[in-house]
């Protein structure tokens, strides 16, 4: 690779930016609902389900995400000799991120659900709401309001964590910045990458604040 202009570098980085955003969006889209399902498993009266889910959450929280990504990517071949193409890199990234973040979200949901006063359930029961209605109409909306600050924390961490996809050579922002910086012997890609993550998180913070404000119509 020859010398590139700043513009050319930015163009290359922009491609990586797209991939980073893709990882971010896919992870949230799937881990937020999956986290709720896992939270139910964690609170299940069935001891077996509860134990399995507890173990899963402790592994997800207790080992590095980078290691989990590698296991998801290399596992199929090392364990089952399943040949995976290079297209699996991005999929493995998605899967790794989703199952990791779902575990964190599950614990956040659980804390929110368990902090709800029992009176809300009793009122719903007396008024004749079924279990489904009680949860989705009465409990969950209030839980979401309560847990929003913790969710914001996780989402901001996720923005920065997308850079871990470089371990699977996924061409996201950070991998490209690293490659460019090396080939161009130049700090600019790192500065640009830093700016990208910072501005991304600024937008996330503004967006989450907006949602929090939207939910301030009640206390």
């Amino acid at each position: 690779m020859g010398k590139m202009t700043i513009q050319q570098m930015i163009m290359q980085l922009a491609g990586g930016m797209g991939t980073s955003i893709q990882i971010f969006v896919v992870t949230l889209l799937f881990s937020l609902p999956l986290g709720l399902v896992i939270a139910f498993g964690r609170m299940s009266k069935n001891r077996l389900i509860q134990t399995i889910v507890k173990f899963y959450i402790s592994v997800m929280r207790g080992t590095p995400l980078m290691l989990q990504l590698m296991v998801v990517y290399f596992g199929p071949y090392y364990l089952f000799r399943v040949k995976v193409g290079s297209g699996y890199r991005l999929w493995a990234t998605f899967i790794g991120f989703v199952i990791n973040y779902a575990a964190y979200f599950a614990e956040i949901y659980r804390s929110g659900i368990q902090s709800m006063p029992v009176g809300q359930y009793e009122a719903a029961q007396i008024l004749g709401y079924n279990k489904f209605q009680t949860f989705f109409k009465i409990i969950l909306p209030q839980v979401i309001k309560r847990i929003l600050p913790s969710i914001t924390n996780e989402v901001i961490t996720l923005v920065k964590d997308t850079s871990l996809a470089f371990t699977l050579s996924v061409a996201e922002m950070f991998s490209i910045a690293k490659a460019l910086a090396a080939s161009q012997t130049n700090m600019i890609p790192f500065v640009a990458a830093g700016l990208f993550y910072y501005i991304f998180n600024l937008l996330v913070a503004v967006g989450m604040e907006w949602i929090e404000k939207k939910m301030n119509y009640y206390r």
Partner: protein
Amino acid sequence: MKLLELNHVEKSFGDLCVLKDISMSVEEGEIVSIIGPSGSGKSTLLRCATMLETMDSGEVIYLGRKAAWTGQDGRAVYAGKKELKEIQSQYGLVFQNFNLFPHFSVLKNITDAPLHVQKRDKESVYREARELLKKMGLEDKEDAYPYQLSGGQCQRVAIARALALNPKILFFDEPTSALDPELTGEVLKVIKSLADLHIAMVIVTHEMAFAKDISDRVIFMAGGVIVEEGTPQQVFASDNERTQSFLGRYGTIL
């Protein structure tokens, strides 16, 4: 037919026996107050009658339909889900701390269950809800949220919410215990005004003057048993030693 029958209800929390062989009934349109010292089992009785608490043994019958009975092993057996749901639609409950849904406006608190549980027609539900709000003196509060209301207003919304489902019997679990004397007055006034709706009411209360004034029948509970039961005049003028010691001061004031 009796609206509600409780027969031989027993309930313990661990080693603590809270209800000992309680039997009582409520007739259509009747107003019954349950009074007694704290910890006498009044609220637990109400919670057993409304199925928020499962009793250990005994019978709960609404309009001749059995919601629960004592099985052969001496433990309470509850009716199936569908039967319980139908029985449940006969009664409502007003809680001590209101338990309004904070994320619903006043109007939605009242209309949501009639619309989505009873699946009634939107127009009539809203019309009735607004009538109820007017009756409660809250016609200008339908768009407010519970946090914007005083405790007394919250409790009146909770009463409207319970009434919106057209119950035959309405239970009140110490409806004014979380309120100051001024707010207590406004809530009691509202409950009194319901007397002409001919809904049966069972009121657990510490407001003796109110109980004496509004009730057709007063039940005095202590230590998990019904000590005495009768018209307000009978109970408030009772010779029973336990009743006397509880009501003593009220007897002389009233």
